[in-house]
Structure formats: C-alpha cells, structure tokens
C-alpha cells in the first residue's frame, strides 16, 4: 500500500507545540509577546500539518480500508518489544481537522484575552500592568502549547498506551490551567477558588484514569500488544476476549471484554465529566476562558468520547459476548445528558451554564455510542467542538467586556461599586448585543447550534442523527431522555442569550462594556462559520429536499471506517416522527425561554423568574443536587481522616514498637549490668580478690621478718619431710 507521503508528517504534528513549550519555559519566558508568538507560530504549523493530513485522507476515502500506521520500537519488555507510533484513519483525520483548527483559533483568541486580569492589583505587577498583559502571560502560552501537544498526540497515537500518556499530559495541563489564577480568592469562602478547582479536577479525573489504566493493563495482558490495528484487526482475539470470563467479587462472572471495556469507560467518565464524576467540570470554569473553550469544551473532555470511539470494536465485541457495558454507556450518557441539562437551567454564571451544557452534550455522544450510533457520535463530537468553543470564547468576550466596563466605571468614579463584582454573573449583564455586536451575534449562532435550531445550524444535523438512531433502533428510553434534554438545552441556552444580550443593561458595567479586540472576535467569526455550516458534511441523503443539495461525505467516510472495524454503522434513515418531535422540542424550548426571559426583560436586582414557580427544586438545581457536599462527606473527609489515622498509627504504634524494642534493649542492658554483672561476674572477680586479700592477711602472720623464724620453719619442714619419706 502506497500512502501519500504527507502521512509521514503525522508523527511531527504534536512536535511544534512541544518545542514551543520548552522554548518558552527555558528561554522566551521573560518576553511575553515573544512567548505568545512562538506558541501561535507553533500551533499554526501544527494546524497546517493536521489539515494536510486530514484533507489528504478525506480525498482518499479508500484509505479507510488501510489505515496508515507508523511504528518505532520503544520499550523492550522481556522478550517482546513494545512499539510506539502514529496512525491515521478517518476518525483521526476528522479529529485532526477539528483539533488543529480549534487550537489555532483559541491560541489567537488567547493573545487578546490574556490581558491584565481584573483580580490582580496593578501596583504589585507594575510591568505587566503597563504592558496590559497578564503577569504570567508567557506561562499561559507554555501551558496551552503543552496541552496542544497532548491533544494532538492523543489523536495521532496508534496504541492505547501512547494515548494514555497524552491523555494524562492533558490532565496535567488542565490542572495547571484551571489553577492558572492560583492567587485569586473570593469574599465568599464557600466559593471554590481556581487552585481548589484545579486540584479537584485532577483528582477526580485521576480516579477515572486509574481505572482506565487498569483496563489498559488487562487488555495488554490479554492481547500482548496495545496497537489499535493489531487488536481490532484480530477478530479471533476479540471473540476469545468476549467469551472468556473472570470471577469478580460482587459482580460474579463477567467476560474479560466486558470488564476491560467497563474499566476503560470509567476513564472516559472521568475525563468527559460524566455522571458520577462530573463534579469537576463546572468548577474547572475557574480557569481562564480560553482554557474552558479549549480544554473543557472542545478537546480534552471530548477525548473521553474519542477514546470510546476508538475502543468501540472492543465494546461491541463485549456486547456480543453478552456484556451489558454498551447499555451502561448508553445509560450513563443519556442520564448525564438530562441530569446536567436540569442543573444548567438554574445557573447564573455564564460559564457554568456552558459547562453543564458541555457535560450534557457529551452525554449525548456517549448515549449515541451506547446505542451503536457510532457515526452520529463522531459527527456530534466534531460539530459540538466548533460551536461549544465558539460559545465559550464568546462568553469570554462577554466577561472581558463586562470586566472592562466595570473598570471603566470604577476608574471614572461615576459610581463606586461597593464590594465584590462578579463579571460572570448573567444577572449583572443584559442588553449586550448593542454594545458587543460581533460577540453577541456569534454567541447567538453558537447558541442556536447548541439548541439544534432546525435546518440552518450544524448542531441540528448532528444531534438529530443521534435522536433518529435512538428512535430507529428502538431505544425508546434513551430517545425520550435525550429529547427531554434537547428541550432543556434549547431553554437554558436561550435563557442565557436573553439574559445576556437582550433587554437593557442591569449594571453600569454592562452598560459600558466595550466590544473585544479583533484577536478575539475574528476567531469567533471563523468558528461561527463551522457552527452554522459544519453540519452540511453529514446531512442524511434521504432528508427531504436538503438531502439532495447538501453532502454527507463525512458521514460516509466514517461509515466506511466503522465497517472496516467491524462495527454496525448503517445510517438510521430519515423518519418524520422523531425529526418532528425533536424539532418541536427544540423550538418550544426557545419559545418558553422567550416567554420567561425574552418577552419581558428582567429588571436589575430582580431574582430569576424561575425561582418562584420551581420552588425548592430551584434550590436543589442551583446547588447541583448537592453532589459536591456529598462527595466531600463520603470521599474527601474519610480520605483525610484515614490519612490522619494512619499517621497516628505510624507514630504511636509502629514507631512505638520500634522504640519499645530499642528501650527493651536498653532495659535488658541495664538489667544485665545490674543483676548479672554486679552480682555474678563482678562478684566473682571481686570475690577472687577478697579471698586473696584475706588469705594474704592470714599468711602474713607467719611473715615475721625474722630470719630465725624462717629458719625454724625450714627446720620443721625438713623434719616433716624426713618423717614422710619412710611412709612412702
């Protein structure tokens, strides 16, 4: 098989940004603009290479039958050698297309966004304040460069281990970037700060990652390799894996394929913030907004979906072997889609709404994967990345504008704001469409796409496909859950739009909010293009009228790829009933939002009009079903308590025993000295001396010093001896 030579560039794709990372932290660090130029240059290079690879692949659909695979020996493991390498198939190409572009847009956007932040005291950082850039501007670009490496590396990885490595590198960057404003604190001690949010994100995803690693290791043990092509090209092995079982406590006998899939899926749950590990993502909004757009909307969180897409042959083998893991995926996805949507309804932070909507949309993708709508999941993954990063970046633009407005008001001293001003609170906004037209209109486009506004938005085509699949394959529970979610999605998105952009400004800050700089608005426009028209690469052929006009080459390409992997990927086929239902729900969500928020714009200082009709439910939703509190109680506290317990145990039991042994030795020594030494050994020695002294004293008596006495004794002795001789 002769591959286009551009594919040999694939392994270079993650490299420029990695070099940019090292260049910035080692050399360019003190020069802020230089750092961002290096980063942007590197990412543009990566973008060009990604698009080159992706487009060449799109032009050669027959490559789906022969995915490109390039290996290098890496790890000697006993008698075998593990190979690392890159691969390109349709999924990779699609991801490269999206990731390369979104990364570049966000990098450019960041050069505008990372101006001097409002929470810092300019007096402390005079240089940075003069430049008007964040004091740690260079650091930010180093981090996102490293992140870009992680994401691009993950996409091109040809084996699960390498995927895992880049997966974790992204986790690291996520941690660093969420906590980027680590010195920020809030007057409300209960409000989570960036540093806590970063920790929470890393540890929560770590739980999933560890399970993922277990799955990876089990797969490695059974397959002897982790290369995707090697594993998925081997149907015999997959079959064997789905029939051999293992006995687990509590779960009984499960197939290895089921167990491995389940463990890997938990990795995806953590990374993609699905229920029950969703808690970190909303708090991750503490990071700078480009980070939210990049990591927590477009790329890293969708890596979980990408992982399951990749591993789908294993999942479907597990399903064939009778494992319920696909059902589980569908359940978690659908449940999360609805669950997160309900929370989004009652949020007042502009980014939190988007965060929950991300969780919810990722839920759609997992639901799609769970019901076997592989192609729909991929298409939705790609399109969602475009419109969700658009939404986040537009919201960042809004926040920026409001913050500037706040500063403007503050500096001119017209109305001294007392206390803390939250520039992300939608209730502090209103009427921004007039002040920030580009931001406003692009946000509305993104919002319409997210709400699946029929026919003209990309989100409609991708989401509709998922719903159509659920309907066609008879997954009614999934269908209705997702449809309800779609209604709520439309509702909360337009609630957001009406609160933010329509009506009249509710604060001085909103009144004075300026439009953002061009570095920020241009990426918005570029993304808005894809948010509107991106869907026309996957319009079902049999869709009335438009089906004939638009293309579905992307869907076709993915279908071919899916077939190559042995997946069941037949298109759902057009059906009026689900299409009408979902269109109606989306539109009615918009209408309800208009009725509540649009018709009579909210006045300043008024509470959310939803609060009253929903009553206690609103409080529950506002508090996110109290999951944070619950986890704090059952996970965080016991862990810290256990740590303290073990520490005390260590000091007071184990170390005590060691010291006791030491003390015992000393006591024994003392005892030996006191009893044995003094009374036996020493006594014997002294006794010998005593006896000698005493004997001497006695014998001394005959030592008169008089020679005559001695002689007398001599005489007596001789006499005695003489007497003795005859006795012999």
């Amino acid at each position, binding site marked *: 098989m002769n591959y286009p030579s551009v594919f040999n560039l694939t392994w270079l794709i993650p490299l420029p940004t990695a070099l940019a990372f090292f260049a910035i932290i080692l050399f360019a660090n003190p020069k802020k603009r230089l750092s961002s130029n290096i980063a942007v240059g590197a990412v543009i290079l990566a973008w060009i290479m990604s698009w080159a690879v992706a487009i060449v692949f799109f032009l050669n659909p027959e490559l789906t039958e022969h995915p490109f695979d390039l290996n290098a020996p890496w790890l000697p493991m006993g008698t075998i050698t593990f190979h690392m390498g890159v691969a390109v198939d349709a999924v990779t190409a699609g991801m490269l297309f999206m990731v390369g572009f979104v990364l570049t847009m966000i990098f450019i956007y960041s050069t505008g966004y990372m101006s001097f932040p409002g929470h810092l005291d300019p007096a402390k950082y005079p240089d940075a304040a003069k430049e008007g850039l964040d004091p740690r501007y260079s650091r930010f670009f180093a981090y996102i460069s490293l992140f870009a490496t992680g994401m691009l590396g993950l996409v091109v990885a040809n084996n699960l281990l390498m995927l895992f490595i880049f997966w974790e590198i992204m986790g690291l960057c996520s*941690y660093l970037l969420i*906590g980027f404003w680590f010195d920020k604190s809030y007057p409300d001690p209960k409000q989570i700060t960036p540093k806590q949010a970063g920790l929470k994100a890393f540890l929560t995803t770590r739980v999933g990652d560890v399970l993922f690693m277990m799955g990876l290791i089990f797969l490695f043990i059974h397959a002897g390799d982790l290369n995707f092509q090697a594993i998925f090209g081997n149907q015999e092995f997959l079959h064997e894996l789905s029939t051999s079982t293992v006995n687990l406590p509590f779960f009984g006998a499960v197939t290895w394929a089921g167990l491995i899939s389940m463990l890997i899926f938990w990795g995806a749950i953590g990374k993609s913030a699905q229920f029950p590990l969703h808690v970190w993502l909303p708090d991750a909004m503490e990071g700078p907004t480009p980070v939210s757009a990049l990591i927590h909307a477009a790329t890293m969180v969708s890596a979980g979906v990408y992982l399951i897409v990749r591993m789908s042959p294993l999942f479907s083998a597990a399903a064939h072997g009778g494992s319920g893991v696909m059902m589980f995926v569908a359940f978690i996805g659908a449940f999360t889609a609805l669950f997160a949507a309900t929370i989004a309804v009652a949020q007042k932070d502009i980014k939190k709404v988007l965060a929950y909507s991300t969780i919810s949309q990722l839920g759609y993708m997992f639901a799609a994967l769970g019901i076997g709508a592989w192609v729909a999941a991929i298409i939705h993954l790609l399109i969602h990345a475009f419109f969700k990063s658009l939404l986040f970046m537009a919201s960042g633009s809004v926040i920026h504008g409001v913050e500037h407005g706040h500063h403007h008001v503050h500096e001119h001293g017209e109305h001294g704001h007392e206390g803390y001003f939250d520039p992300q609170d939608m209730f502090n906004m209103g009427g921004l469409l007039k002040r920030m037209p580009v931001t406003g209109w692009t946000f509305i486009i993104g919002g319409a796409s997210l709400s699946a506004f029929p026919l003209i938005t990309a989100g409609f085509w991708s989401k509709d496909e998922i719903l159509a699949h659920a309907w066609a394959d008879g997954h009614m529970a999934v269908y209705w859950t997702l449809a309800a979610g779609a209604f709520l999605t439309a509702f909360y998105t337009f609630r957001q739009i009406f609160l933010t952009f329509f009506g009249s400004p509710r604060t001085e800050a909103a009144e004075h909010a300026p439009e953002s700089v061009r570095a920020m608005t241009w990426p918005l426009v570029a993304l808005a293009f894809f948010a509107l028209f991106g869907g026309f690469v996957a319009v079902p052929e049999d869709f009335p009228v438009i089906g004939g006009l638009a293309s579905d080459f992307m869907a076709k390409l993915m279908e071919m790829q899916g077939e190559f992997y042995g997946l069941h990927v037949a298109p759902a086929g057009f059906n009026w009933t689900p299409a009408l239902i979902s269109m109606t729900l989306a539109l009615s969500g918009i209408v309800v939002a208009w009725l509540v928020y649009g018709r009579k714009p909210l006045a300043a200082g008024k509470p959310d009009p939803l609060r009253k009709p929903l009553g206690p439910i609103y409080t529950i939703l506002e508090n996110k079903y109290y999951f944070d509190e619950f986890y704090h109680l059952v996970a965080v506290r016991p862990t810290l308590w256990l740590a303290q317990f073990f520490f005390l145990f260590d000091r007071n039991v184990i170390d005590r025993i060691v010291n006791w042994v030491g003390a015992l030795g000393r006591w024994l020594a003392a005892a030996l000295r006191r009893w044995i030494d003094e009374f036996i050994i020493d006594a014997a020695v002294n006794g010998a001396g005593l006896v000698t002294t005493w004997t001497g004293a006695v014998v001394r008596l005959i030592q008169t010093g008089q020679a005559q006495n001695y002689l007398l004794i001599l005489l007596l002795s001789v006499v005695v001896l003489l007497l003795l001789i005859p006795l012999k």
Partner: protein
Amino acid sequence: MDLLRSSVLTLIVFLPAVGSVIVALMPKEKEDLIKKFSIWWSVIPLLLTTWLAIDYATNFLRGNQMAYQAKFAWIPSIGVNYHVGADGLSVPLLFLTALLTTLGLYYSARVIRKRVKEFFLLFLLLATGMFGVFVSLDLILFYVFWEIGLVPMYFLIGIWGNPKDRPQYAAIKFFLYTLAGSIFMLLAMIGVYLSTGTFDILDAAAKGVWLNAPTFAMLSFWAFFIAFAIKVPSFPFHTWLPDAHTAAPTAGSVILAGVLLKLGAYGILRVLLSLFPGQFAQFGWIVALLGVIGIVYGAFVSLAQTDLKRLIAYSSVSHMGYIMLGIGAVGVALGMKNVAGAQESAAMAFNGASLQMFMHGIITGALFFLVGVIYERAHTRDLKVFGGLSAVVPVYYATMMFAGFASLGLPGLAGFWAEFFTFRGAFGIVPVLAVIGVIGIVITAAYILYRIIQSLFLGEFDPKRWDHWTTVFGEHADGPTDMALFEKVTLWPLVILMVLLGLWPTPLLAFFNEASVNILSSLHF
C-alpha cells in the same frame, strides 16, 4: 582495554575511599581546597560509570551477563574472594550513585559550613560503600560494603543533622535498625557457606542453597529478607526512614533516599532472588503484600504530613512499595511456570521494580534537594507558613513541578514507566494485590498536589505569614529568592533525566530488561 575492563569496577569502588584518605591528610583550614578536590575527585567515578554504561550498552548488552569481573583470593582459608562484576542491573545503579554523589558534594560545598573536612571525607567514604554493594559478587564482600555504608551515614546524620530534628536519635535509630538486620544477613550468609561451601553469589546460585533442608532454606530466606526489608524499607520496618531523612542534611537525605534505600532492593534482586528462588516462589506473595501495604499506607501517611521533608520521606515508603510489589510479583511468578504469560509478566514486574529503583533515585533525590533549597531560605519546612511561591520564585516552582509530577507518576515523566511496568507485571501475576495498590496512585496525586504544590506555591504570597527569609547564602532577604546558579546546576541534570527518561526510557530499560531476562532465565524460568 581489557585491563581497563577488569579493573574499572575496582577503581570506581575504591577511588572515593582513596579520595577520603587524601582529604584526611589535608589541613582542615583549607576548606575551599577540600571542597574543590572532593567534587572533582568524585567526577572521576562519574566519568568511569558513564563509560561503563556506554561500554556495556555497546559490547555486552546482548547475551553476556556478568561483565567486568575481577576475582582474586582475599581470605583463602574460608574461601572468601574479592569478586566484583556488573550486569544490566548494576550498571545503571552505579551511574545513579556516582551522579547523586557528585551532585550531593557539589551542593554541600555551598551549604555545609561546619566541620567541612569531616563531611567531605565521610561523604566520599560513603560512596565507596554504595559502589561496593552494587558490584560485589561475594557474600562477605557484599556484607563488608553493606556495613561500610552505614558508618559515614551515621555521622552525617548525627553531626550535620538539623538540631531541631533530634539527629542523634535518628542516627542511632538508623544505625541500630540496619545493623540489627544485617546480623541476620550475616548468619544467613554463613548458612549459605555451610550449605554450598562457597561465599560466591554466582557459584552458590548455580549450586543451589539448602536444597535438601527446607527449614534452613526458609530461615535463611527470611533472615536475608529482614535485612533487606529494613534497608528498603518495607512496611512495617520503615519508621527509621522518616526520622533519618528528616534529620539528615540535604545531601545526606538525597543519598539516603536516592541510593541507600536501593541497596535493599538490589540485595533482594541480586542475592535473595538468585539464591532462594524456591522460597521466593513460596513467599513472594508476602513480599508483594508488604509492598502493597507500603504503597497505600505510605501514601496515606504522606497525605497527613505538614512537614515538607517528612512528607517526602514518607512518600519514599510508598514508592519503595512499588519495588516490593514488583519483586514480590516476580517471586510469585516463579511458582507459576506453567501459566501462560506469567514469564512475560515476571519480566515486566522485574523491569518495573528496577526502573523504580533508578527513577525514584533521581526523582526523590531532586525532591530532597528542592526541600533543601527552600529550607536554606525559610529555615522552616512547615507547609503552613508557605503559599503563593509560584508567583515569586518561578524557577523553583517549575523545577518542583517537574519533580512532583514525576513523583506522582505522570506519563511523560520518569516515574510513570516504573509504575506502569510494575503494575503491568503485578496485574498479570497478583491482580488482587495490584488492584489495592492502585489506590496508592490516587492518594499519591492527592498528597503531591494538595500538600506540596498547593501549600507551597498556590494562593497569594503573603509576606506577613513568615518573615525569617534569607538568601541561600545566609544574607537577610525580604522574601524568598529564586534558585541560585549552583542550585540550578544541581537540580537540572536530574530534571533533564526525568524528562528524557519519561519520553524515551528505552536506553535505560534496555539495561534492566537484559538483566531481568538473564536473571529470570538463569532461574530456569
């Protein structure tokens, strides 16, 4: 070349001792000369070990197991030989020892201010003991070097230890604890001699020890094991470690964590595994169990620490647990000869354990240096007084991030490969224990991020919280100053190694893999 090959190990071992004699002859007022001489002198073994690594990689890595052997009679009446040699397991560890010794001396030259001559003398002597253990192929020689390492360390902790941390107590605890273990070892060595008639490790392994006396074999196994487990230290013999590490001067902690702990693990792989494979197969699960307990327990205890140095000391307990888990898994696998895949898993567990020896050496070495860096400035290690340093000392922050994340096993940095291989091996052999051990990974992330990174670096820097700052040279300062040049020179080689080995562990792994394949196949596995 042949002459160099047969004498290089002897040179590496005894050059530091010769150096310490030369230091002893120098007048004690000439501190500068002593420092310079010691550092440059220690570079010679470093160069030799580097040459050794390259030479071994190019000439011996395929098939020839024990290279650079030198053997002559030492105490002929009882058959004790001076027998040294190196294979894929010892060559990287020799390099590690030489590297950390040079860095330790270099760092100490700037921060040791009292009794300079004695310090450098003892430090060089210590190197001889450590090198000796890694090359000994004779049990008595092994024992002698093992004990030689103890004495200088005892003085290093006792004399140059921080007076606030009860250095004498810590030193005597370290000394007696280890010595108590080595007594058992000596007994067991004599047992080996009685059984096989030789003290030579290779010969004894070839003959088999106590093949017909299972009770004696078991007793000898445990006697050896206790000695090694105390040194490692494995749970529950670990409590000397936090005290000794906390009290020791910075370079002492680095050597202690970086190399001395590895002696125990090395002993298990070199002596215990090859002499008592049968017992290892029988009791391997206990070793693995102790390892798993160590991993989880050490991680939890680390999480409860508020003293930075003690925290890292406890994290060593946790990380050495990985080694014990890997070694234990190898042992268990010896009893699974007919199970498919067990051999592969055993090789990986072996690789994991030996990788962890090396990786933990550079990572924890770096971490202890980093503790020294902040301690020299703040004169406290209490994590509660810090915060916000990330904005103030970015170089220190970046270095700590590399070391911290390497320690928590982030892929792309050195620590990951050790963890991955260990778990890959352990999951194939003792899956239940491995599952429990996995908890340690999460807790490790928690204590590194929550305790170290968050307490030291995040939040807003508040100069009021701690006001005893000085520069590293002892001059008064208003706040923390960033790493000085000599600290960068000390730490960055380690950081570079972490990154390089994290991305491309292949060269290092080639050594260990060769050793594991050879040792396991010599056990007829």
